[in-house]
């Protein structure tokens, strides 16, 4: 007749064999033990094989001279530099492609995704065709196609297509003039950063003013003015140095100016076009997942279609869009490793040559994995932070 209150019942005495806690631990220990056994098996084999074949180990080779030249570098590099520097050059190239790719693919993908929802039937169908075409063919195939088109369609440097005698397009790449290095550029860089910060400040102030008084403020034009105007102001104040480095045909190639090489172009264009198709689908499904009432109400209060999209739909769709976008950004970063197939010197290409010249596969592969993991984890972390920021705070 005694009623046991909740929580007062002591745990029934069971034999250790049937106790779930103990069984859980035994199971875990067995599994971890098996994994450790497998790991020990692999590691001992590896050590034995390395010793038997007298392959060197350790990371000392990173200080040795690389001996090979790299075609497209962001920092100074020569064959006399170390392997570490060669790998760093590759890493920077990968980051360059990844960052530019993410930026351009997002813009292009959003435009196409929104275009697919356009009331214009032709535009919607064209965007749909684009998406289906790029999603259903492997990226590697697009890279090959674009690269071959670029290298075979354009003439040699001596017959290069020239625009205004300063832009030259040939199968060696697009050459264009750049300003000569000048101390004023550092100040312009600082002015740019100041301009960006100022633009954010102005945006916050304008929003507060609009919330309080209802007066709109041309935030976009003001931001543009700040971000572009401040550096130009600094440049003018510094005496407007306008020395330029012009590309000229000397011997085999153009000297001077700077170049966008066909390998980089093919990789970037291929990545952007391919990923933008996926981004377009994500944006479209994000907008379609919204409550239809939102767009109907927005149109009912008289907003134009662009305003509806910009002010009402896209901000809400962002919450749905951000998680799959994260995986697309990660995909761009990882797909940039396909550069090795068309000869662009990214991280995997540099590591591949290093493996061949030094024979030390394991250390090099660890470097690749560490590099890609850190980039992936940082992108994920940033996107997760952004996701939390825009998440609906429900009570």
């Amino acid at each position: 007749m005694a009623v046991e209150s909740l929580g007062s019942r002591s745990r029934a005495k069971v034999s250790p064999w049937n106790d779930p806690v103990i069984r859980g631990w035994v199971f875990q220990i067995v599994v971890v033990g098996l994994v450790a056994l497998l790991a020990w098996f692999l590691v001992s084999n590896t050590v034995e094989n390395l010793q038997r074949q007298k392959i060197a180990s350790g990371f000392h080779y990173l200080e040795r001279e690389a001996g090979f030249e790299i075609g497209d570098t962001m920092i100074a590099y020569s064959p006399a530099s170390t392997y570490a520097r060669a790998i760093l050059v590759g890493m920077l190239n990968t980051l360059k492609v990844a960052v530019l790719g993410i930026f351009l693919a997002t813009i292009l993908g959003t435009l196409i995704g929104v275009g697919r929802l356009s009331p214009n039937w032709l535009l919607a169908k064209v965007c749909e065709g684009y998406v289906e075409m790029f999603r259903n063919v492997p990226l590697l195939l697009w890279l090959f196609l674009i690269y071959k088109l670029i290298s075979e369609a354009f003439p040699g440097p001596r017959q290069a297509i020239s625009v205004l005698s300063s832009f030259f397009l040939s199968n060696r790449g697009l050459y264009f003039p750049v300003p000569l290095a000048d101390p004023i550029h550092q100040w312009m860089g600082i002015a740019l950063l100041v301009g960006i910060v100022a633009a954010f400040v102005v945006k916050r102030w304008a929003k507060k003013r609009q919330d309080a008084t209802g007066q709109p403020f041309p935030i976009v034009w003001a931001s543009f003015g700040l971000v572009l105007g401040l550096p130009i102001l600094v440049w003018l104040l510094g005496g407007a140095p306008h020395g330029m480095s012009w590309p000229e045909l000397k011997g085999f190639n153009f000297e001077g100016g700077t170049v966008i090489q066909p390998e980089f172009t093919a990789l970037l264009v291929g990545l952007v076009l391919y990923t933008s198709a996926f981004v377009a689908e994500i944006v479209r499904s994000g907008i379609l997942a919204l409550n239809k009432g939102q767009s109907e109400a927005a149109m009912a209060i008289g907003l134009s279609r662009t305003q509806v999209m910009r002010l009402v739909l896209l901000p809400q769709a962002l919450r749905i869009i951000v998680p799959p976008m994260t995986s697309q950004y990660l995909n761009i970063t990882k797909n940039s490793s396909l550069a090795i197939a068309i000869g662009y010197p990214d991280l995997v290409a540099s590591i591949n040559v290093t493996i061949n010249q030094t024979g030390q596969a394991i250390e090099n592969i660890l470097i690749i994995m560490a590099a890609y993991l850190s980039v992936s984890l940082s992108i994920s972390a940033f996107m997760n932070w952004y996701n939390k920021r825009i998440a609906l705070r429900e009570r």
Partner: protein
Amino acid sequence: MTDAMPVGERRQLAPPVVDTGVLGWARKNLFSSWGNGLTTVVLALVFGWLLSRFLNWALFTATFTAASGAECRGHGACWALIHEKYRYIFFGSFPYEQHWRPLFAVIAMLAMLVLSSDRRMWNKRLLLIWGIGSFVTFLLMFGQIHIPLGLILFVALAAGGLGMIMRGVLATPAELNGWRALAAIGAIGLALRLTGVLPAWSFVMAPLSYVETGLWGGIPVTLILATYGLVFAFPFGILLALGRRSNLPLIKGLCVGFIELIRGVPLISLLIMASVMLPLFLPSGMTIDKFLRAQVAVILFAGAYIAEIIRGGLQSLPKGQFEAADAMGLNYFQKTTLIILPQALRVVIPPLINTFIGFFKDTSLVLIIGIFDFLNTANQALVDPNWAGFPGEVYLFAAFIYFCFCYSMSRYSKHLEIELNKGTRR
């Protein structure tokens, strides 16, 4: 004032011409505003011009048969190159007279995939379809099958064990004894085999000549890598997903670590690792076929992605299902296999098909380690100096074939999503 017509006989006027039919549709969809109209005109002009140039190159001035590349040069597309090399592009260096074998292997695999897509087959028949289909495929591709006794006994042990676990609650004592007998045969047989009492016999079927994996190429390679990569990654992914959601900290840590590691690195680095490092991991003298190495890399990679998808499906189940299963007294295996997984897998089928499409395209990366999948054979067809200089034709042809496969799979996935959602409340 009277109307021209009496009230009861008012004639229906036809609707305005500009609002219905083709004109009405065009007005609504193409020319509804100035911006719209301008867009339509510009797009129509641009695409009309591009399409006419493309058709001109691809059809009207193209050469369809030629004896060598030199004849083909100059005017439009050279489809004669495809006509000349299509067998190499489709089947690689498989012995020329025996190309019927990879052809039927591809047909068998496509039949397996198409039959699996029929929902009436989603029960034990699936196992039968895949078993027969895989057997036929590998028999045709290899030509000869040697199954060592150890493997047969191990499969007996595994099947018996699985049967005992999964049917333990539901089976009649006779069936349970059957599973126990199978497991016992497997265990005892293995023990005898390992101690050397049973000889090293293997079941041999050798109806055709042996063709090693180094000679395989083209579509069969792409299909095998993608299909069997996913078939084996599927149970592996389920285990990883269940492990990641488990309460046991060590298991969860292992699974999370593995999944994040594999998802953070590109497939190329895994393939390079498999082809370069795997031989170092194995005892000296033991070699693994290069094709098998690539297959293992694809399985590991796919497993991590599938694990994440299944985890999403598991998370979408209401907690009540788990709690009710516990309340009924089911243990972990029974709960998972009878209640949770069937529901979770149903939800994740469309994303799984998308993963399959993605991996079908990603198998093209095995080009980097020298395996001749469909893209690589297409690439190689360009190399012949007699037929040099037609990359557009070959790549467009390859793109067309990939498009056919992937587009049909994605349309099927959309259709399946609609079908599966018919029962759910909107």
